[in-house]
């Protein structure tokens, strides 16, 4: 089944409580996905610094030592801070170079995402506990997307949890299942994408990453995805300055969107949105099938 939520703040009014509101929304979707959960938070956006979120599950990595080696290898300063098994690297170096170096040189680690604003956290377990463990409620920022998972297409693992990164500052959560992911995975691998799981959503993320790398805008990439991805999906896609929602042409997987002057929210069910301030004044609707809804501050 799975539950997805997204909250994009159109104004600064609720930025200090972005995490608290997202956690309330996420918890409401527990019934839809009690296996595992994850969230991406966008905040503290700085042009001169890239953040990389790295998961080191079940291993005791000495990140001080790793950063020292990384600084020598790429000739630039790298700071790190840890949130349990997630490590955030902060650097003025090129994010793509750092990501590649970490993947090649730090075994048993998975780079969950990178960008100027994004941080991604995910884990197996009850969504409320996952949110508490990684301090979602205390986070501030401009927008967040989150996911509760009931696995159907691949194993219940942290790596198989959402959100999946689709490139710099871009990530994806998914409710549904894709039926042509094995074929698409082979095609994308031949185009240079690499995959870390057997998960169908990772293929959708890889597809968007490929199209964005080829120069498509997000809307162009999503329009193409509607033609090429076969299956059921409601996607919520986070970008550096906004988010987008898209459903397959049949649109069986639920989605509801609400908008006020201060925020736009999407969720699998209204009860997640019911937690938000001034919801009584919100315009609320179900997004049309095969239509791209996107918001940004730009």
């Amino acid at each position, binding site marked *: 089944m799975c539950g997805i939520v997204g909250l994009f703040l159109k104004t600064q009014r609720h930025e200090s409580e972005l995490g608290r509101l997202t956690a309330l929304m996420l918890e409401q979707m527990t019934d839809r996905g009690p296996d595992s959960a994850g969230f991406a938070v966008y905040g503290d956006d700085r042009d001169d610094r890239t953040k990389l979120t790295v998961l080191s599950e079940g291993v005791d990595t000495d990140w001080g030592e790793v950063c020292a080696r990384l600084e020598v290898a790429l000739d630039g300063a790298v700071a790190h801070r840890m949130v349990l098994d997630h490590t955030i690297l902060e650097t003025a170096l090129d994010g793509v170079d750092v990501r590649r170096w970490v993947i090649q040189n730090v075994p048993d680690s998975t780079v969950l995402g990178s960008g100027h604003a994004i941080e991604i956290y995910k884990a197996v377990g009850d969504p409320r506990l996952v949110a508490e463990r990684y301090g979602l409620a205390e986070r501030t920022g401009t927008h967040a997307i989150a996911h509760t998972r009931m696995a159907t297409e691949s194993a219940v693992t942290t790596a198989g949890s959402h959100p999946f990164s689709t490139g710099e500052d871009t990530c994806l959560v998914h409710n549904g299942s894709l039926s042509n992911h094995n074929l698409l995975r082979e095609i994308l691998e031949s185009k240079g994408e690499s995959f870390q799981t057997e998960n169908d959503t990772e293929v959708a993320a890889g597809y968007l990453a490929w199209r964005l790398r080829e120069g498509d805008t997000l809307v162009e990439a999503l329009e193409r995805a509607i033609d090429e991805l076969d299956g059921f999906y409601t996607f919520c896609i986070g970008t550096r300055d906004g988010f987008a929602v898209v459903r397959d042409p049949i649109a069986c997987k*639920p989605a509801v969107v609400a908008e006020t002057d201060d925020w736009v929210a999407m969720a699998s069910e209204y009860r997640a949105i019911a937690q938000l301030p001034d919801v009584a004044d919100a315009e609320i*609707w*179900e997004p049309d*099938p095969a239509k791209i809804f996107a918001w940004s501050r730009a």
Partner: protein
Amino acid sequence: MTVLDLSTGTLREVNSILQAAESGDYVVAHPQGAHALACGLDAAVGVRVDGPVGYYCAGMNQQATVLVDGNAGTGLAENIMSGSVTVTGNAGQSAGATGHGGLVVVHGNASARCGISMKGVNIVVGGNVGHMSAFMAQSGNLVVLGDAGADLGDSIYEARLFVGGSVASLGADCVEKEVRPEHLEFLAGCLVDAGMDADPSDFRRYGSARALYNFHPDDVDAIRDAAGAADNRGEDR
């Protein structure tokens, strides 16, 4: 008037009280998008829900009059048998699905598959309906004051569809039909029942061309080809 507060009572408690009621009027406060609220009622009670509800509100309703002052999620009044269910805001997908009788009124928009497989219910939507509305509709009336999305009335049997605005496209075997005096008479009464202000003469009528009703020998080759293709893909049939 009895007030049932979902911020203090559980959904099961509230539904149990409503389902046991034989008469009277009830107000449900703080619904917060709860699912399956006021389901399975079978008495002439009045229920007003003060706020938005989640999935399957007032499902299987019989006799009761349910008013939701807010929006409703997926499956509003699913399989309604009699009575009425009214929503002041928008309704999610599959509103009035498989309804056998009674009246479903949505003052805002209803989303995809409104009235799917309806079997006698009357559904009145003040705004627009989404794609695949009245899919496989068998009986009853769908009245849409606004526009209808793509594939209206796909594979329809005998329901009557009235649309005041535009139709994005008609589904398979759904065609426009003449509006006769009995249709104007029906619309006039139905719109009054629904509390809608519209002129019956502004509606166009759609219904079944009845071309998909029966097996036709000319179709046998197409059916055989489809079956062969399924075999080649190793699918179960």
